């Protein structure tokens, strides 16, 4: 079983939003899914990259109550424009309600990068 983080949502706040940020001025692509409570029946809710002009911020399309115990996954790949050791990568996933980052709602991956790095992150929502 994958390592799943817990992100706590507020039932009193607005619909949750997600933002994907690729740092270190690298190229990044992602796709994100929503799963049921048992980690089955995936539904793609967003995909994109940071090269196109489209914002990498999207709504989960459900209220916090409807998301309770459901699993969210996000898969990403980061590539450096120039390859070679000595570079760093950074991926940040932010969960917001009403524009405010929720409890445990900032997930960050950092590390060394020499070419390309593939990542996956799993989150279970609680209310």
């Amino acid at each position: 079983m994958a390592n799943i983080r817990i992100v706590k949502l507020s039932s009193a706040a607005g619909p949750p939003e997600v933002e994907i940020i690729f740092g270190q001025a690298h190229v990044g692509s992602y796709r994100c899914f929503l799963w049921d409570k048992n980690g089955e029946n995936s539904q793609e809710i967003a995909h994109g990259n940071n090269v196109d002009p489209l914002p990498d911020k999207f709504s989960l399309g459900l209220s916090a109550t409807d998301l309770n115990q459901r699993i969210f996954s996000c898969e990403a790949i980061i590539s450096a424009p120039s390859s070679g050791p000595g570079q760093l990568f950074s991926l940040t996933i932010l969960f917001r309600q009403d524009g405010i980052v929720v409890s445990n709602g900032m997930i960050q991956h950092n590390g060394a990068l020499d070419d390309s790095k593939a990542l996956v992150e799993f989150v279970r929502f609680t209310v």
Partner: protein
Amino acid sequence: MRSLALIPGSLCAALLLAAQTPSPGTFKISKGSLDLSIPESPAFTVLGLTPETVVRPTTPRELATSLVNGVDRNGNFQTGVAIDTAPYMLLAGNTLTIGRYRAQKMSVTRFVARTQVSFAITKGASEADKSARMALGFRFTLFDNGDPRLDGVLLQCLADAQQKALSGDPIPPNATEEQQAAILRKREESVKAIAKTCRADAQKRNWNNSSWIIGAAPSWTSSDGTTRNMKASGYALWSSIGCGFETVPVLKDTSQLIGHFRYRTKEQVPDPQAAGKFLSQDSTAAGARLRAGTGTTTANFEGVFFHAKPGGRKPEEYWRISFGAERKISDNLWLVLTFGRETGRKDNNDKVFILTSFNWGFAQNE
């Protein structure tokens, strides 16, 4: 001398004015393949351990180590190490997106992100020169049309490779860590295979694009090589402007002209009239280098005018003419070979020199 130094800058400025900023999809990719080689460390530059006098205006590395073993211009064997870093990328790079880096034509963020700091230390290994030298180098990139992060075609190529690797079934939450790792590894390999071609094509487009850097570096010298005798030995200021002939079809994929100016104070140089002794010297250099190449080999011709004022002796002026080549031996390992001679010294002490060095470093050169 002054007019000579202005030639490449003026020519480049005229060509740049006529240049159109390349847009994605408009690049003509030639069959040739040229590489950027390993950028000179600013700290090595002031210590005189780069074989060429004219510094190439390249995009700095984010974190790199360079080693040099070679013979300096005075004929003394030197070994050295340099550490180069881009402080902004280390400290604040996590919040710097590619969109913000590329946002404007003139960007403060991009300027700060490209600023490079380096530290180098070298040691003479011959009887005539046992000195140790240290330098702290700062390099500022005013513009660089060859910056891969500004190459929209390259970025889209990488994004397409990523999208392709991300296609297929998603990784399920109930997958074991081993299963996850295997899928992620497969995706990385898929992207790397395509990215290699993306980057090679980008290097063909960008290796000789126009750019401009300025640098500054204080230095310290210990004439006997001991740390307790390490003393300040002046500073250096330099600037290089490279012209990639972006608007000249015959030259734009094969050639680069670089103009260079350098001012150096209180440099400790071996006294040619007394072995083991050193002179304090102020110097000014101005010149140009023409680079041309095919494949992973570049050839260059360099002409530099020097005006030097050795302490307690008459000023001297002379030319240094050299011809050199860089050859990529393997990833991150380059052989640099330079032949040259000086001409015009009043004491007829013109030197002929052959400089060789293996440059090995964590460079952005794949």
